[in-house]
């Protein structure tokens, strides 16, 4: 946040000048935001983040010269301290999860642009904004998306997981902690940890969020 004026500094990245103008106009209805730059492609967005150091980057998904998620990856890799919010026409659950993994703090659909200011307010308070609401942590989002995907996905491959391990993966994808899993399965936390080590080795993931995304993508979430 800009220390002098207390306004939130925003960079808008979208290949369409009409969208950029609309977003700028929306932000100008509140005195809390200052647009510090506009980018019409992903490459320029990544460069401008370094140059203007905005508090928030509003990033479209489908842009020339580096699509949105690739631009986000470049920005995250560069260690920029910007909060990125995707502003897009449509997005899949898989893309939302990928964006969150890459450090995005929210997603606003263009047809719900009236929610832009509440979304940015939530993100500036340290929350996430997904599916038109403020969410306090990423596990909640994964849990929500997992529940939605569970209705659509059918398990296809088990990746060498035992029935018990598959069960634990499903719990992880729904946001359960080790203690909750242990209680649900009537086993000890130590046993859960042992299973987790085996699971990580089998599927090649290194943390719970990656595992949750993997489980959702491969239909490993049980109803």
């Amino acid at each position, binding site marked *: 946040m800009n220390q002098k004026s207390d306004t939130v500094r925003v960079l808008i990245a979208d290949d369409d000048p*009409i969208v950029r*103008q*609309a977003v700028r106009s*929306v932000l100008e209805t509140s005195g809390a935001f200052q647009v510090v730059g506009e980018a019409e492609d992903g490459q320029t967005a990544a460069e401008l983040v370094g140059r203007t150091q905005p508090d928030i980057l509003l990033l479209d998904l*489908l842009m020339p010269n580096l699509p949105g998620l690739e631009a986000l990856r470049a920005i995250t890799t560069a260690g920029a301290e910007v909060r990125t919010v995707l502003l897009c*026409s449509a997005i899949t659950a898989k893309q939302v999860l990928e964006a969150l993994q890459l450090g995005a703090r929210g997603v606003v659909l*263009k*047809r719900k642009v009236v929610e832009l200011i509440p979304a940015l307010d939530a993100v500036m308070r340290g929350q996430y904004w997904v599916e038109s609401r403020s969410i306090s942590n990423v596990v909640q989002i994964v849990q929500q998306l997992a529940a939605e995907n569970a209705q659509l996905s059918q398990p296809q491959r088990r990746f060498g997981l035992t029935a018990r391990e598959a069960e634990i993966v499903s719990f992880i994808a729904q946001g359960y902690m080790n203690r909750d899993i242990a209680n649900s399965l009537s086993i000890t936390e130590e046993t859960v940890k042992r299973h987790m080590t085996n699971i990580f080795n089998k599927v090649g993931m290194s943390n719970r969020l990656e595992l949750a995304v993997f489980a959702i993508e491969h239909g490993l979430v049980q109803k």
Partner: protein
Amino acid sequence: MAVRQGEDQVRAALEKVWMTSKPEVLSRLATIERFLASLESGNSNNASRLAAQSAAHRLSGSLGMFGLGEASTCAAEIESMLLHDDSLQAEKMAELLRDLRNMIERRESQDPGRIVHP
């Protein structure tokens, strides 16, 4: 109350942008219609197809912001047709374009205060 007031201000701001952007929106629509005409007469080329694809992409990206969510989806369908050779059918595209133009023109005749954002 403050939230509602904020939303009203946002809608009014978007309405102003819509008024100034209309010529560009219609120009994008015309770009796709020209491509369709060339496709129907067997004179289409890659440059006009790319221009139509870009126009459809931008319409898809922007129309939803002005309360035209269905039109945005329609433009996305057209963009998808233009991206894939096997789905490029003049008759289907003509139908989608007619729908798209109707939706845009219908918005024109509405009272701006009644435009509903989901």
